[in-house]
C-alpha cells in the first residue's frame, strides 16, 4: 500500500527541486508546496504513475499577511490507495495566476471558475473562465479575498432598486453607497465576458431549436438552479447549467464567526445531511486541536449519521419519484411517511428536525435519550421491510424499467474521470466509499458492505440508494449492540482559540465524498474553510449526460442525482 511519504519521495525523485515545503501528517495526508511551473507535470506524474485518478477539488486561499495567494489542489485515488495529496501552488497577490488543470482533469473546470470569481486568481489555459456562482454585477469585487470590504463592514442586501425593463421584467440594481465607494469595494473594472444567456443564445442554430428554462422555479428543481436545455422537438441537444441562485457565501461567513458558531453554518449547507456536515467540520477542527472523541460519542455520531443518511436517501428518492410519476403517485408519500419515523428518531436525540447543530468539538451535544435503543429496535426492522417492498416495487414495474434503464448511464471510467461522488459513482460499479477509504470514528470496527451497481443508469442510482439504506440499518443495529457507556464529551478543555494548523477531513455524506479543508491561524475564528461538496462534484456531470435524451429523461436524470443545490452553491 502506498503511503504519503512514498508519494512524497516519488515526487521528489521525479522532479528534484519541485517540492519546496512538505509535510506528511499521516500515512494518508500529504501537504506539499509545488513549484507553480511544475504543477502540471507533477499532477501528470501522480495520475499516471501513482494512481491519483481522483481530482477532488481545489481551494484558493488568500494569505494577505504574506502577500501571496495559494491554490491547493486536492488529489486522491479511487480505491488504489488512500493517500490524499494536498498540492499547494503559490502565486503573488498582485497579479495572481496559476496553471489550469482542466486539460488533465475534466472536473477541474468548476472548481477553478469558482476560485477565479471569488478570489480573482486567473487560471491560464482555462477554456471558459465565466462566473459560476455570483451574479454578474458582483464579479470583480472578489468577495473571498481577505481585504474585501463589502463584508462584513457593508452588507449589500438592503438597497435593491427595482428597474422595470421595457419588455416587462424587473431587474434589480444595488447602487453603491457613499461609504462603499470610499472604501473601494465597488469594482471599477469588470472582466469582459458574455452573460450566461448570451452564451447559450449563441448555440441556437436553426429555427426549429429552442432553449427552454427548466428552473429556477420548476417542479424538477429541489432548490433553485437553472437548467437550460436546447431542444429540437423534444430531443435535448445541449444542456446548460447555471447555479448560484442560493449562493449564500457560507465559506466567507464562516471566516467571520467563531469556531463554535461555525457549526451552525455547516447545518445549513446541506440541510438533509446536516449531521454529516457537522461531523466533517468538527472532525477537521478536532484534528487540528488533537482532540480524542470518547467512544460513546463516536458511536452516537455514527448512529445519527446513518439515520441521517436513511432520511436523506428517502426524501431524495421520494422527490425523484414525483418527478417521474407525478405527485399523485402514492409510494412517494410512503417514503415521506417512513422518513417521518426516522426524523422522529433523530429529533428525539438532537431536538431538531433538519438542522441539528449536534456534533460538538470532542463529543456530541447530548446523550441518547432513554428508550432510544428500544424505539430503534422497533422502527428499524419496520424500515427494512418497507425498503424491501420498495426494491420489489421497482424491480417488478415494467414502466419504471422502460423509463429508467439505460437512461443517463455513466461508465465507471467516465464516472471516475468526471469526479462523480457517492451513489452516483457507486452505481457505475466503483466501490468508493469514504467510510472504507478514509475511515473515521468507529467505522473500521463495523461490518458493512459498499453497495455498487452495474450499469450506472438512473435505475441503478436509485437501487444503490435503497440498498444503502438497508446497509445503514445494519450499521445502526451493530452500533446499538456495541455502544459503551461513558462520557459523551471529551474531558479536555476546548480552547476558544485553535492553534495554527490545517486539516483536511473527509466523511461520507449521503451524496458522497464530503471534504472540509480547515485552516487556522491561531485566532478564535477559522482563517479559511473550504468545503468540497459531493453534489457540487456530481452536479458538473449533469450537462454532458443530458445530451441526446428527451426532456422527460432529462428530468429523470437530474432527479436521480439527488440534488441539493444549497450545498453546491454554499
Amino acid at each position: 500500500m502506498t503511503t504519503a511519504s512514498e508519494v512524497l519521495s516519488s515526487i521528489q525523485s521525479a522532479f528534484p527541486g519541485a517540492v519546496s515545503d512538505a509535510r506528511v501528517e499521516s500515512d494518508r495526508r500529504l501537504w506539499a508546496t509545488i513549484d507553480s511551473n511544475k504543477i502540471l507535470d507533477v499532477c501528470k506524474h501522480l495520475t499516471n504513475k501513482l494512481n491519483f485518478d481522483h481530482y477532488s477539488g481545489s481551494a484558493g486561499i488568500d494569505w494577505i499577511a504574506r502577500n501571496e495567494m495559494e491554490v491547493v489542489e486536492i488529489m486522491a485515488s479511487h480505491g488504489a490507495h488512500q493517500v490524499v495529496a494536498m498540492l499547494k501552488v503559490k502565486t503573488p497577490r498582485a497579479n495572481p495566476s496559476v496553471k489550469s488543470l482542466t486539460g488533465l482533469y475534466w472536473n477541474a473546470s468548476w472548481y477553478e471558475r469558482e476560485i477565479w470569481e471569488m478570489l480573482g486568481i486567473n487560471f491560464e489555459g482555462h477554456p471558459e473562465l465565466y462566473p459560476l456562482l455570483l451574479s454578474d454585477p458582483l464579479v470583480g469585487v472578489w468577495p473571498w479575498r481577505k481585504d474585501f470590504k463589502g463584508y462584513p463592514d457593508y452588507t449589500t442586501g438592503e438597497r435593491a432598486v427595482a428597474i422595470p425593463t421595457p419588455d416587462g421584467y424587473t431587474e434589480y440594481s444595488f447602487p453603491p453607497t457613499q461609504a462603499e465607494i470610499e472604501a473601494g469595494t465597488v469594482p471599477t473594472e469588470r472582466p469582459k465576458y458574455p452573460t450566461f444567456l448570451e452564451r447559450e443564445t449563441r448555440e441556437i442554430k436553426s429555427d426549429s431549436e429552442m432553449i427552454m428554462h427548466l428552473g429556477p422555479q420548476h417542479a424538477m428543481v429541489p432548490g433553485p438552479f437553472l437548467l437550460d436545455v436546447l431542444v429540437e422537438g423534444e430531443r435535448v441537444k445541449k444542456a446548460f447549467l447555471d447555479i448560484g441562485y442560493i449562493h449564500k457565501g457560507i465559506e466567507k461567513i464562516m471566516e467571520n464567526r467563531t469556531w463554535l458558531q461555525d457549526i451552525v453554518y455547516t447545518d445549513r449547507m446541506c440541510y438533509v445531511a446536516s449531521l454529516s456536515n457537522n461531523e466533517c467540520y468538527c472532525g477537521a477542527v478536532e484534528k487540528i486541536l488533537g482532540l480524542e472523541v470518547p467512544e460513546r460519542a463516536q458511536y452516537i455520531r455514527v448512529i445519527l449519521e446513518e439515520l441521517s443518511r436513511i432520511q436523506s436517501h428517502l426524501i431524495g428518492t421520494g422527490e425523484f419519484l414525483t418527478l417521474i410519476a407525478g405527485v399523485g403517485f402514492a409510494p412517494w408519500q410512503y417514503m415521506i411517511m417512513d422518513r417521518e419515523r426516522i426524523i422522529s428518531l433523530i429529533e428525539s436525540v438532537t431536538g431538531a428536525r433538519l438542522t441539528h447543530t449536534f456534533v460538538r468539538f470532542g463529543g456530541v451535544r447530548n446523550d441518547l435519550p432513554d428508550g432510544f435503543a428500544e424505539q430503534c429496535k422497533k422502527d428499524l426492522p419496520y424500515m427494512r421491510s418497507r425498503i424491501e417492498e420498495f426494491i420489489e416495487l421497482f424491480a417488478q414495474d415494467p414502466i419504471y424499467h422502460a423509463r429508467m434503464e439505460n437512461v443517463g448511464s455513466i461508465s465507471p471510467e467516465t464516472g471516475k474521470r468526471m469526479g462523480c461522488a457517492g451513489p452516483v459513482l457507486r452505481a457505475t460499479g466503483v466501490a468508493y466509499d469514504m467510510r472504507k477509504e478514509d475511515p473515521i470514528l468507529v467505522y473500521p470496527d463495523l461490518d458493512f458492505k459498499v453497495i455498487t451497481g452495474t450499469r450506472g443508469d438512473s435505475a441503478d442510482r436509485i437501487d444503490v440508494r435503497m440498498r444503502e439504506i438497508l446497509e445503514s440499518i445494519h450499521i445502526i443495529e451493530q452500533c446499538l449492540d456495541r455502544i459503551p457507556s461513558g462520557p459523551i464529551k471529551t474531558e479536555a478543555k476546548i480552547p476558544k482559540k485553535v492553534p495554527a494548523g490545517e486539516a483536511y477531513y473527509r466523511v461520507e455524506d449521503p451524496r458522497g465524498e464530503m471534504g472540509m479543508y480547515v485552516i487556522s491561524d491561531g485566532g478564535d475564528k477559522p482563517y479559511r474553510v473550504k468545503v468540497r461538496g459531493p453534489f457540487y462534484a456530481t452536479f458538473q456531470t449533469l450537462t454532458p449526460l443530458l445530451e441526446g435524451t428527451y426532456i422527460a429523461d432529462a428530468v429523470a436524470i437530474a432527479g436521480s442525482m439527488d440534488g441539493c443545490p444549497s450545498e453546491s452553491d454554499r
Partner: protein
Amino acid sequence: MLKRKMIKNFTWPLKIATREIEVTRLYPEVMMELPAVERGIHELDATTCIGCGTCARVCPNSCIEMVNFKFGNPLKNKKMQFPQIDFGRCMFCGLCVDECPVECLKMGKKVIMAGWERKDIIKGPDFLATKRFSAKEVADLEAEAKRIAAEKAAAKKTAAKEGAAKEGAAKKPAKEGAAPAKKKANGAEAKPKEGGAA
C-alpha cells in the same frame, strides 16, 4: 413473468387504503408529542438570570439583545438586563442555551409561533420568562439589594477609613475609595426604579 408484473403497484395502495389513517398528524387539533430535548421557543428563568449577556455574544446571528425587564432578581442581575430574542432571526441552534453559565435559558417544547407583522415575532423577556418574580417580590429584593449595597458601601467606607487610618495618609485615597461605592449604589437603585415606574 408477465403475470407478476405491475401487481404490486396496485396492491400496495389498496392495502394502504384499507388501513386506518394513522400517519397524518392532526396539527391544529392535536399537537404531536415532542421529545424532551426539543429545541423550541426559549424559556427564560428570570429569577436566576444574571444578565451576563453570554447568550447575546455567542449567538451566531446576533438575534439576542439585552433589554430591561423589571421582574428579575436584582440581587443577581444588578443591571436588570434580560435577553430579548428576535425570532425573525433566531435559528434555534441552541448555542445560547449551551453557553448560559447559570442555565437560566432553556428551549421548551413550544414551537408554534406566527406573526402578522414583523414586530410580532420579536419577543421580549416578558414573553420569554416562564419563571419570574411578582412586583412585590421584586420590590423586596430591591430593598434587599439596596441594603446590601448600603452595607457594602458602609463596609468599604470603614475599610477605606481603616486603610486611611492605617496608612495615615491624606484624604485623597479615602475619597477615591468612597466615590465608586456611591456610584454603584446609585446605579443599582436607578435601573429598577425606572422599571417600576413603567
